[in-house]
């Protein structure tokens, strides 16, 4: 009969309408209340009816792999030997793999010898350009740059706020381990230690030279360390910070233009020299 198709469709709409109230009744009209622990069910595969999330009174916590604007990992403040130190060694790989080229790194140099030190002097990311692809985090060999979960970055003035400098980018290691525990654990397995790769290497060297003396106390704060396969290699080194610490000084990102220019010129010179050496 003409019109039956239409009527059936309307019945479906009616069913959806009724279903949109079922949850309200089921949760005693406290569907959106904090105390009802129903969010996972409401947003899951079994649910029918309304699935709307009442932002900002409720927000969907993002999954671990979610990626939004990178940040740099620095050592926790209570780390026994490396407190506040960058994990980044300014190797430049993230700047190379970044598709829109929004990462700028100034490699640090020892002021006395002029030799590069494994720590960036400055680090900038233009988050207006960043496409949140996650390549920097994926290809960083030191696990030093990670994708953040904080997507609430609106600001009134993008010209002053949207180039993140090193200060703004740096977040402690413990933050990364709190927002992405599973991934941090997997990365630890690959690295073989909860520590920074280099620090662990130093530690091994230190342990080797100190062989025969009393074993170093394991000063880790993490309980998980016990399960790490390379826990033995993690004894912290006491004296390996001398070179790196000397790079700490003036904040390069607040320098004037002339100084930046000068540094850039020097860096390019070094680069040209290296290229010439390679050419030979």
């Amino acid at each position, binding site marked *: 009969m*003409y019109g039956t*198709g*239409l009527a*059936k*469709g309307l019945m*479906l*709409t009616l069913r959806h309408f009724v279903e949109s109230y079922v949850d309200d009744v089921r949760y005693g009209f406290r569907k959106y209340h904090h105390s009802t622990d129903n*969010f996972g069910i409401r*947003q*899951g*595969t*079994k649910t029918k009816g309304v*699935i709307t*999330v009442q932002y900002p009174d*409720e*927000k*969907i*916590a*993002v*999954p*671990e792999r*979610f990626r939004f604007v990178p940040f740099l990992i620095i050592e926790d403040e209570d780390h026994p030997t490396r407190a506040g130190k960058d994990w980044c060694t*300014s190797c*430049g790989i993230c*700047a*190379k*793999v*970044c*598709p829109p*080229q929004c*990462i*700028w*790194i*100034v*490699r640090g140099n020892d002021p006395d010898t002029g030799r*590069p030190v494994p720590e960036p002097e*400055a*680090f*900038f990311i233009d988050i*207006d350009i960043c*496409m*949140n692809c*996650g*390549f920097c985090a994926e*290809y960083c060999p030191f696990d030093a740059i990670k994708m953040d*979960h*904080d997507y*609430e970055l609106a600001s009134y003035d993008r010209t002053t706020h949207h*180039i993140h400098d090193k200060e703004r980018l740096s977040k402690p290691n413990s933050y990364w381990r*709190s*927002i*992405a525990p*599973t991934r941090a654990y997997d990365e630890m397995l690959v690295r073989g230690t909860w520590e920074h790769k280099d620090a662990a290497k130093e530690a091994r060297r230190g342990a080797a030279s100190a062989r025969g003396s009393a074993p170093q106390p394991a000063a880790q704060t993490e309980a998980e360390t016990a399960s790490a396969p390379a826990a033995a290699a993690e004894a912290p080194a006491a004296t390996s910070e001398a070179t790196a610490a000397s790079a700490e000084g003036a904040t390069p990102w607040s320098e004037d233009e002339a100084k*930046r220019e000068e540094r*850039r*010129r*020097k*860096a390019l010179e*070094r*680069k040209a020299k290296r290229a010439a050496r390679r050419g030979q």
Partner: protein
Amino acid sequence: MVAPALDPEVQTNSTTIEGAIDYLVSARPDAVSPDSRDGYEGIIVAAGQLLEIARMIRDDLGFDYLSSATAVDYLGEGDHMEMVYHAYRTSGGGALVFKAQTDREQAEIPSLTSVWRGADFQEREAWDLYGIRFAGHPNLKRILMWEGFHGHPMRKDWREAYYEEEQKPFDSRWPGGHVHRSEEKNVFGKNVAYPPDIDLGRLMDTSETAVYQSLGLGVDVERIMDKDGFETNELVVNMGPHHPSTHGVFRMVLTVDGETVTSLAPVMGYLHRNHEKIGERNTYLHNIPFTDRLDYISSMGNNHGYVLAVEQLMSLGRRYNEPTYRCEALRVMMVELSRIVNHLWAIGFWLNDIGAFFTPVLYFIQERERILDFFEAVAGSRMMCNYMRFGGLFGDLPERIKSVSNLTNDRVRDYNTMQFLTEMINERIPRTIDELELLLTQNEILIERSMGVGVLSRDDAINFSAAGPLLRGSGVAYDIRRAEPYSIYPELDFDVAVEDEGDMYARYRVRVTELRESVRILRQILPRLEATKGESIWADGKPGAYAPRVPLGEAYGRVENGKGELGYYIVSAGGRNGSMNPWRYHVRAPSFINLTPMGVMCHGHKVADIVGILGSIDIVLGETDR
């Protein structure tokens, strides 16, 4: 492989590509020669005889479907321009690749629009971006850039006003990072160069004549307008560029006789950012997230086509490992899930276009949300998935789809991934498709509105290089997953959806069938995932390098995306020009080429049907304009 030298008569029957090439070479040695460059395939045709040879390819050899026609600028590599054509048989099989070369300065090649009308927009694009003239083209106008644009931007020696460097990575990033905001280099008013002979006043001219005269509608606007306006019953109507009804910033100019459309010209390019030029500056790796932004509804499929093309090239070199079985299974699963997303979206917004405003589409979006939740947990992003890598993937499935509260008011979810997937595939998605059919398939209003509207005949569909549901809705059972299978599709059990009528309703039916077939494929993927649990997604167990070695040569990787055939034509200059960047990176965009028959399909219909017909083609402007 060298085929035995047979009598040309016999070789006509040869169904292999090699046979076809041998036939052409032996029949017309004056015009055709095999392309013997390292890593290249197909034949090179003398430009003068191109039209003749193209007819032979279509009529004698049966390559009735011209998939892609694009240009390459070999500046410094022989200093010539080259048009590259990929022709297929709709009965299936590989491509006959043929090329025609021309001088860079006086670039001219005969137009193939008289053989395949599908070449129309693609040749206009080649003229626009490369400056190749196509003799005999009925309407050789710019298509992505505007008339009065200076130069042809895809030429290797063309530079934008805020040019930084030929290839990424740029030197100023490291070790002496010199931070600047990109606007500093891209100052408004200084970011466009005008040709010396252009009359800027004309660009400011808001009179009707200037706006419409370049469209080739054959209408004299003055004649229509100068009377009191009502004297003649022919009228020019401008639709768009406005978002909801034209699916993005897309514009159509039509002439109407009363309510009936007499001619229609699509106008595009409002979202053009020269994706391909960016792609040639990028390294191979950089391009993966850029492909996400083409057809942003199904980014997984875009990734897939691109990595397939690059993997084809990489497989020519040493030290290349095929993706593992688990990797392939995961790829197919992701692609099929995005096909479901795409078709739900396409049907939903098509309904919006014909007047069923937002009730059905919101039912479908609910399902889409669940699939995107899954993408987000696995790939890190809902739409810009950036999931596939050369020879592998970003990551395996996580054990659990889990979140950690971080912001205030964050609510946490935690599901077992495989259980989530199983419930989605076995219960939720099939239920939604059932509802969709209940709501629509027998709905009398929908049937009256869509049957017999926007008809594209079988022959036209093939000749216009239509792809995807638009082609299959016109009775051509051509699905790349079957016609030229890739990945693990050969071992999967599914049918190609096809309907004969060629109208809007047929395309709707094709999409519904494809939804069901996708679910069928996904159900076969689930046990395969269980069986390969623990297997690495990388052949040698560790992730691929960020600068893979891509040997010299060309490749055309194509996949059946939700919107049709998505192809990537990639030329690698190998070690010669910095092996990290492709020499040529071309996207055969189904949304773009499927618009070629738009004028034919709309002819004789009412104005109110135009938006519906556009919706039934299913385009995304990110891909149309590139």
